[in-house]
């Protein structure tokens, strides 16, 4: 099951297949709109004693934020679905994300924190990457589930009940958003630290 881990990636080796690169950047746009319009909606009735700075929000006011949010949701969902379907069919997920063992995560995390984690071969994810990518996928699914529950708490009331009803779904939607933002901070930081990874996500290698 375990794959050989070459220490360097040959120049010709494809790091990211085309479907990953396309869905990655479409997703980047969709998530950007969903987050900024979502913060606009949050500000209309804050769950916690803070609001997002208006300069970070999309839409100008609540109706604008809602229009953006309920438009970009289609892009986010359709693109995500395409990614999941192709990823599952081509065994991309199995090859890239598995095996995912807790002890590897601990090992790679301590290596990363002491600056000893190699990024020589971008095509093979280390255990921390695997955990982050699988984690953000799960957060995305929770986002869609709780979002559907908020949009349709009556028509989909069994789904809403799964999140603790309408108010529970609001909390879940908020914290799933927060975990995606946390992921993004680390993700963008890592891309800046290893600029080759950005090149690979555009050109494939």
């Amino acid at each position, binding site marked *: 099951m375990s794959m050989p881990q070459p220490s360097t990636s040959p120049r010709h080796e494809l790091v990211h297949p085309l479907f990953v690169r396309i869905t990655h950047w479409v997703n980047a*746009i969709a998530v*950007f*709109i969903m987050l*900024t319009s979502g913060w606009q*909606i*949050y500000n*209309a*009735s804050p*769950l916690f004693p803070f609001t997002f700075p*208006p*300069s*970070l*929000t*999309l*839409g*100008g*006011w*609540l*109706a*604008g934020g*809602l*229009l*953006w949010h*309920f*438009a970009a949701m*289609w892009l986010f969902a359709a693109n995500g679905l395409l990614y999941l379907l192709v990823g599952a069919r081509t065994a991309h997920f199995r090859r890239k994300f598995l095996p995912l063992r807790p002890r590897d995560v601990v090992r790679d995390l301590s290596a990363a924190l002491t600056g000893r984690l190699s990024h020589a071969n971008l095509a093979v994810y280390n255990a921390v990457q695997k955990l982050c990518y699988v984690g953000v996928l799960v957060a995305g699914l929770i986002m869609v589930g709780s979002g559907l529950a908020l949009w*349709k*708490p*009556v*028509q989909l*009331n069994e789904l809403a009940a799964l999140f603790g*009803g*309408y*108010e529970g779904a*609001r909390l879940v939607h908020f914290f799933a958003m927060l975990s995606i933002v946390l992921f993004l901070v680390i993700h963008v930081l890592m891309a800046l630290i290893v600029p080759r990874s950005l090149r690979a996500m555009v050109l494939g290698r």
Partner: protein
Amino acid sequence: MRRTRTPVAGVSPDLLVKDAARLLPDPARRQFLRQVGSLGALALLTGCDITDGPSAEKSLRKISEFNDWVQARLFNPNRLAPTYPDSAVTKPFPFNAYYAEAEAPDVDEERYRLIIDGLVANKQPWTLDALGALPQETQITRLVCVEGWSAIGKWTGVRLRTFLERIGADLSAKYVHFVCAEGYSSSIDMPTALHPQTQMTLAFDGQTLPTRLGFPLRIRIPTKLGFKNPKHVIGLTVLNNYTGGYWEDQGYNWFSGL
């Protein structure tokens, strides 16, 4: 139950002025795409024209119309909104409107008439007593506001379906439109109007509907967002033309189903 004298049935002159004032575009509301430039979102979305605000707004409204269509198909006429025990009722129930609570219209209950218009056999206006004489039902349901918050209320009144049948409304028409004493308006689809929980509410928590919650008549629709639950309703029209509504015209999604 103190109701003060108002010159015209149901309408306060102050609110009419307010209503006229709202027809002037509110700059804060009109600029919903202007602030977008700071984020470069439009550049991302269209790849070019950041200045093309109106056409982006037009596209977003087109998608909103598509969402109306999707929601009409997701709407199950037999699916009931969850109901709650008495102990779950939110107290005090929040007031929310585009005007301050003190400015809620004072409708004279003696002069009040519900005006009926459109595709209806019997257009005779209805008094509060006549509405009160129709079969009453109570529901404890959650009101979900477009702003995100929600509150549970105990609403009593007449099934809108019963009323529409009583006045000989054309139940195959597309829309029911409501107008309110303060100048508010909203319209809904006929399937929602015929939903068993769509109610012409006359009482809240066992008391006559208070002014702040829409005296004398509110349309309570637990399958739609709160702004589609008009208060102080003075007119009902059954029709086939799309008429929008106060907030809908400003950009809130029209169907807004839950």
